[in-house]
């Protein structure tokens, strides 16, 4: 059996899966739009939690957050299930496919056979959609791949029951109900409002633009605190979070700018267009940051220093603070 499901490549797996699933049910939303409505833009630096021998840097909220917020804002009902028994998880998937429901799943990437080896770490929050079964192999739409892929029963079972941090435990989800009319305008404004909250309004030093500034000042002390090798690895970790598959470049900044551009058209607010231009500019600065970090990682060019790189980050933080404050005002005016 094969469901008539259109696979479209996306930058990020979570947005991509939502956009693909919604399209199947007749809601045309771009990846950027889903990202914005789900309030996907985020930043946090948690120096006191070490994951994989490096502090936590994140350019996105917790896995599943964008998904929940986007579907809730749009009024789409989702059924989510986890299974203790792997065999039952697979049975349930088969039943769904038999009923013609494309089904999303959370999987680990380490044992995902079609995934490029250079990206295979023990990361357990990747999203894929199964849309059929032919000759005992599942047809898989993975948004970060160019085309559809297939997985055998055992292969799929192994990735659905990946172990380690944040185990998926066979988690699967599918759309059960789509409202007749969708208020995209309201959803977009609410998405922006939440993002403003996370980027500039939350107190404390670790989340949003204050987190960036915090990281900028911390980063300058890394070489003396941790030694050159460790400092370079930590810096590399930031760039990996920023540029590895899934971000669309510059730690989601370009993706968010694309969202602002689309929102400007939808809401007929010109100020959003100029914000998109500013956001693109900070995105370009994040790219400069990655270039500087890459050179420091190689450790042979002395023109770059941790001092300068940290300053760049503080500069970006100040610019983004301005952007999100303006966005907050725009949302407030539009909501009146």
């Amino acid at each position, binding site marked *: 059996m094969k469901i008539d499901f259109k696979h479209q*490549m*996306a*930058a990020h797996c979570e947005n991509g899966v939502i956009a693909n699933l919604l399209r199947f049910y007749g809601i045309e939303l771009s990846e*950027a739009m889903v990202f914005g409505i789900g309030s996907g833009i985020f930043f946090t630096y948690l120096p006191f939690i070490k994951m994989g*021998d490096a502090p936590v840097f994140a350019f996105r909220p917790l896995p599943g957050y964008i998904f929940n917020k986007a579907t809730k804002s749009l009024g789409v009902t989702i059924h989510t299930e986890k299974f203790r028994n792997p065999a039952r998880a697979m049975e349930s998937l088969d039943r769904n496919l038999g009923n013609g429901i494309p089904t999303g799943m959370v999987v680990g990437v*380490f*044992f995902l056979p079609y995934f*490029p*080896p*250079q*990206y295979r*770490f*023990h990361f357990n929050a990747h999203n894929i959609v199964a849309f059929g079964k032919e000759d005992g192999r599942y047809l898989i739409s993975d948004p*970060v791949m*160019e085309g559809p892929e297939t997985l055998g029963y055992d292969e799929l079972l192994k990735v659905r029951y990946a*172990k*380690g941090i944040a*185990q998926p435990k066979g988690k699967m989800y599918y759309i059960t109900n789509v409202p007749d009319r969708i208020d995209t305008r309201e959803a977009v404004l609410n998405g922006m409002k939440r993002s403003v909250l996370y980027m500039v309004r939350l107190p404390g030093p670790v989340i949003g633009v204050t987190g960036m500034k915090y990281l900028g000042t911390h980063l300058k002390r890394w070489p003396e605190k941790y030694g050159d090798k460790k400092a*370079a*690895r930590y*810096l*590399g*970790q930031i*760039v*990996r979070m920023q*540029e*590895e*598959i*899934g971000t*669309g*470049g*510059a730690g989601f900044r*370009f*993706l968010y*700018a*694309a969202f602002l*551009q689309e929102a400007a058209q939808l809401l007929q607010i010109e100020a959003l267009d100029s914000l*998109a*231009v500013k956001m*693109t500019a900070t*995105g*370009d600065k994040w*790219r400069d940051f*990655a*270039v500087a*970090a*890459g*050179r420091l*990682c*190689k450790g042979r060019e002395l023109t770059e220093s941790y001092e300068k790189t940290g300053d760049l980050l503080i500069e970006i933080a100040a610019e983004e603070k301005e952007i999100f404050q303006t966005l907050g005002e725009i949302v407030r005016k539009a909501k009146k």
Partner: protein
Amino acid sequence: MKIDEVPQEDAEAFEKEFKVLQYAVDDNGRFTTVKSVGWNPKTVVMQNAWDFENEKAEIARQLVLKGKKSPLYYHARKNMMNSALLAGYTGFCRISVLLHFNPKVFKRLGQKKLQKYAAVFGFESVEQLFQIES
């Protein structure tokens, strides 16, 4: 980032070429998507991360060659697993996995347990568990 600025570098840095989607601005200032094969700073940091993992595997290999750890220890490290993760995949408790890292204990393991380990690493036979690259 403009469309012509989307980096297309280091396509052959890793064994499998892989394109990611990037968002870039066209001549009219509108965003569109462009596929990118790679970017040098990204290659550097990814290589750096892999070097770190490979280093850990190499240390493990030396320990195995010296007879201080069982070959299982090396295979675990090579798959970037610690005892807890390996315990999760096999269903053994963590303390048993730690015991199996001991060469003397590992030598006496039964076929059933060995097969479980082999399955986790994707080996066809249990003999592969005892082999390490010298």
